[in-house]
């Protein structure tokens, strides 16, 4: 491209250098975004840890009043919420995922860098919203699971639950955007030659995790939307006296909640599968089965949400089905544990702190997994659920399994991230104190649970015999706190020390990130490597994986000497320009949330204006942005599918679950309407006409796309105008329909039928409205002649969205309108 290739300068500035504070605020470099995730997560980790310590102090002795019931409830709620949404997920996905995906697959950045920055800022806004209760309205106090109908305004007045629900909505949006971004990146931007079977296992786990995110979070979103409707608009989605059932929330929540466990655990499995081979100097044992077990765990995780609900009375058949599926998960999990051990077996071990933590994880996680088998057996679960036994179980999984892994990952990748080593001596102290403190804190909980101590109780009686173990646990918690303190000290010391620069490849690593400098330059790789097998960097260093490489290593032969620098032009590396809009947009969203909660419409309007303006702003930045993903060096492994198309299809996939949750709610609730107009009110002739209109708009849409693709500007304008018009007619029909229902006495809150109908059809209508807006923008572009043949993809993307809205209507028309005569199920 460039006429005169300028060779790279001898010193390549790392991604951390330059830019100043504004450079960080506007950055869209995946590595900088990752570091910002790290900073916020470490802050929230300290906060969540503080809450945990307060809980342990309160439980030191029976009938203690160090904390009031209200504060205790708020603390255990916020401890769970913080650790899951603001610490573990940001660390695993936002920090390690963001930093390592492009580096491990040999790419310059993620597929949608600005979206990535937006994800971070939204996550931060969510964290702030969740904690605004400190200032006004009190902290959320209904548990991280927020079971309805305790969360109804009648039982929990005040703002706390509003902060919680809106905070989680924003956090969920951010996570879904991340999932979309990661999935697209891993699927489409792998270096040439990196087939699926050659990806590092961490990439496998993140790819599958992203799919999990896309499918799991919509259920939570729907649950929260119902909750907010109940709290703000007086609907009764979870109110038993209106014929509804609070169990609906539990189903929606655990449909999200159980996959969520694997959203946290799978990346951890992936990381362990990176750390162990490196420090055993052996390839990962049973790679295909490891990848497969990740897929299987992910799939099964959708069939097991009911094991959180054995006590709710689902009936013996459902209990059995959920019990068996839950047990099945043990099989792929066992495969992983045995494969890790087999990887160590016969290895040449290097006992670093990272490896210590990985070894610790294997044992501690096994314990958590085994108690999990007990919970899978429904009758046993009935004794153990909501007791301290469960608290022990999931801390062994989430702390023993996931937190240990995060620590291993820190010691392993910190040199790459910061360019400095973490202290090994301090690290060993950190490790041993963690092991002792962790087991002392959580192992006795098994026994407390078996002795009947329930969870989430701020106090207990002296005659129950729980005192001694609780005191032991509190001591353990303090040891654990010291361990974390050492961890922070270690980070601080490593950052403040002037010496000890980390080499590019301190551990003799196996995957691509170790091939570039520590810390890497902003563009990651000067040249995108050609991948020849698993453990790409190992092969580059020692030749093909297997005996040759190890033989070379064992004979003391150093990796081949470096060759003279290949002239690579700086101009050939196109990095996307920074953007302020992700930050501004997130602020706008935050202000909307704030306004919603404190019920001040002017603030909502300001927030909405900022949000819309920054979306428009992002749109105008587009020209710069589009190029990035079409870097010729990125010859995508996916056969030339545009990343935006993959991204949109993933979004559509996610929307499937969104609408499925809405539709099932409608079907479950429609026949339980108590008073007022029921399904008979629906106007079939009108909606048949609407259906016809929408179908025809889809036809016009494909015709418009065909016109754009052949460069026919005249028909492009006409067809696009037609689509917009038909869309507007459809919306008009809906407005007419809603108005006439309202006049016939069916308002939003009239009965279960009306509220689930209005929410379902209303959300579809909102999708149509967004589609109409999107297409109008395209139409304006077409009128001004800016929508040429080269931009056919823009039309195609809008078309895909539009057709999806159409197929959703096909389903709604059948299930909601035509099947009205049929009772639920």
């Amino acid at each position: 491209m460039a006429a005169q290739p300028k060779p790279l300068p001898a010193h390549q500035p790392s991604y951390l250098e330059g830019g100043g504070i504004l450079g960080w605020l506007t950055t869209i470099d995946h590595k900088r975004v990752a570091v910002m995730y790290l900073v916020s997560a470490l802050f929230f980790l300290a906060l969540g840890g503080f809450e945990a310590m307060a809980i342990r102090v309160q439980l030191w002795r029976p009938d203690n009043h160090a904390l009031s019931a209200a504060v205790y409830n708020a603390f255990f709620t916020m401890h769970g919420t913080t650790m899951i949404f603001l610490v573990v997920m940001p660390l695993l996905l936002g920090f390690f995922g963001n930093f390592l995906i492009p580096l491990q697959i040999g790419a310059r950045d993620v597929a949608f860098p600005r979206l990535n920055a937006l994800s971070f800022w939204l996550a931060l806004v969510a964290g702030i919203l969740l904690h605004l209760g400190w200032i006004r309205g009190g902290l959320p106090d209904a548990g991280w699971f927020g079971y309805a109908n305790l969360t109804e305004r009648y039982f929990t007045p005040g703002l706390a639950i509003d902060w919680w629900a809106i905070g989680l909505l924003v956090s969920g949006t951010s996570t879904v955007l991340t999932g979309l971004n990661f999935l697209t990146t891993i699927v489409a931007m792998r270096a040439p030659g990196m087939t699926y079977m050659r990806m590092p296992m961490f990439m496998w786990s993140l790819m599958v995790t992203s799919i999990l995110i896309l499918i799991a979070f919509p259920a939570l979103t729907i649950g929260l939307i119902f909750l907010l409707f109940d709290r703000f608009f007086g609907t009764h989605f979870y109110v038993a006296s209106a014929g509804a059932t609070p169990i609906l929330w539990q189903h929606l929540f655990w449909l999200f909640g159980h996959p969520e466990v694997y959203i946290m655990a799978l990346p951890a499995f992936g990381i362990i599968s990176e750390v162990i081979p490196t420090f055993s100097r052996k390839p990962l044992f049973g790679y295909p089965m490891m990848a497969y077990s990740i897929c299987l765990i992910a799939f099964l995780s959708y069939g097991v949400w009911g094991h959180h609900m054995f006590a709710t009375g689902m009936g013996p058949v459902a209990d059995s089905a959920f019990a068996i599926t839950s047990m099945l998960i043990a099989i792929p999990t066992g495969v992983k544990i045995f494969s890790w051990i087999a990887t160590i077996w016969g290895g040449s071990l290097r006992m670093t702190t990272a490896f210590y933590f990985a070894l610790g994880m294997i044992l501690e996680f096994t314990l958590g997994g085994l108690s999990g088998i007990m919970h899978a057996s429904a009758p046993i679960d009935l004794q153990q659920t909501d007791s301290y036994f469960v608290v022990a179980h999931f801390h062994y999984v989430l702390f023993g399994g996931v937190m240990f892994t995060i620590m291993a990952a820190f010691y392993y990748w910190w040199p790459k991230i910061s360019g400095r080593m973490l202290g090994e001596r301090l690290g060993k102290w950190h490790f041993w104190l963690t092991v002792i403190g962790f087991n002392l804190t959580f192992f006795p909980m098994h026994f407390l649970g078996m002795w009947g101590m329930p969870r989430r109780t701020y106090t207990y009686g002296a005659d129950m015999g729980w005192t001694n173990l609780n005191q032991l646990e509190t001591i353990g918690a303090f040891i654990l706190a010291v361990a974390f303190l050492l961890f922070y000290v270690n980070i601080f010391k490593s950052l403040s020390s002037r010496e000890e620069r980390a080499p590019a490849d301190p551990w003799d690593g196996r995957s691509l990130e170790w091939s570039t400098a520590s810390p890497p330059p902003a563009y990651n790789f000067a040249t995108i490597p050609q991948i020849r097998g698993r453990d790409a960097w190992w092969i580059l260093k020692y030749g093909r994986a297997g005996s040759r490489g190890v033989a070379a290593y064992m004979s003391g032969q150093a990796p081949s000497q470096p060759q003279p620098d290949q002239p690579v032009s700086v101009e050939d590396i196109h990095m996307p320009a920074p953007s302020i809009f992700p930050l501004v947009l997130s602020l706008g969203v935050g202000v909307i949330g704030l306004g919603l909660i404190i019920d001040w419409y002017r603030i909502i309007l300001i927030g909405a204006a900022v949000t819309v303006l920054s979306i428009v702003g992002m749109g105008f930045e587009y020209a710069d942005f589009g190029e990035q993903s079409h870097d010729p060096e990125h010859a995508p492994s996916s056969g030339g599918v545009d990343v935006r198309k993959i991204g949109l299809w993933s979004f559509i996939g996610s929307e499937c679950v969104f609408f499925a949750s809405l539709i099932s709610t409608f079907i479950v609730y429609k026949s339980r309407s108590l008073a007022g107009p029921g399904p008979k009110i629906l106007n079939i002739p009108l909606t048949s006409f609407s259906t016809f209109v929408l179908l025809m708009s889809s036809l016009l849409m494909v015709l418009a796309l065909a016109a754009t693709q052949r460069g026919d500007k005249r028909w492009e304008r006409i067809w696009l105008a037609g689509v917009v018009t038909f869309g507007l007619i459809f919306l008009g029909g809906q407005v007419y329909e809603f108005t006439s229902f309202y006049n016939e006495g069916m308002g939003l809150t009239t009965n279960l039928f009306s509220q689930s109908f209005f929410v379902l059809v209303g959300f579809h209508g909102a999708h149509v409205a967004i589609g109409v807006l999107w297409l109008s923008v395209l139409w304006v572009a077409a009128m001004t002649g800016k929508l040429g043949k080269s931009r056919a993809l823009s039309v195609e993307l809008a078309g895909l969205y539009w057709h999806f809205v159409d197929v959703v209507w096909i389903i709604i028309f059948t299930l909601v309108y035509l099947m009205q005569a049929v009772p639920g199920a």
Partner: protein
Amino acid sequence: MDIFGEHPSIPIGIAILIAIYLGACRAAGRKPTRRQAMWFAIAMGAILFTQTELDELADARLFSMHMLQHLMQTFVIPPLLLLGTPGWMLAPWMLSPPIKPIARLLTNPVVAFLIFSAVFVTAHFPPVFDRMCRDENFHIFLHLLFMAAGMLLWWPILSPVPELPRLSYPAQILYLFLLMIPMTAVAAPITLATKVIYPWYTEGAHGWGLTAIDDQVLGGLIMWIGQGTYLMIVFTFIFYKWSQREDRDVSVPPEATAPELRVLRSRRVAGS
């Protein structure tokens, strides 16, 4: 086991199948591989077992065994037959001009999937199913139909004829995944029903001392969890083959000449 007892059609049918198999070998002048012959033999054994032993239990008003029988007929026997039949045996007539377009259409994954789903769902519709229980000829017809539809279903996975190709491995997984929808649509309502759906099972004595409703739940579970587990095992095999193929596809260009390798190495040293 009295093979020639009630249903002489079964041994006769098996004998005819074997005769055709051997005849085709002779006509082509080729022998199936040892492995193919083994699969074919197992398939014959499976048919015999399904149509005699299981059938007797199913006739004793054991719904669960009837479901097991259907699973065998759709999920076990057809793949075995496809594995046991060499491509050269089928290719001549399947690719002959009048049949080829039909074969192409029927073995198209979408068409095959739809046909199988339609047959399977319709057959478990209460009126149809109940008639099957009462009308022996209709019963035989439906069981043959199951096996035929099963052959179509498994064709895109195990096709022995390259001209009517298999799906790619990931697409195979997706294809079988999709199968869970019609299977669940049939199995779940049966399992979770609180009443006996098919009247035939309430009339007359019930085998094994099960109550009709327990038997129905068991049958539903066999179909639901049984097929799920079975498909899971099949996924494992497909995934394993996929991973092996991707492993084999490695072509190692001479390393010394790869320019990006040199660059990478220099990068690494520059950074350290």
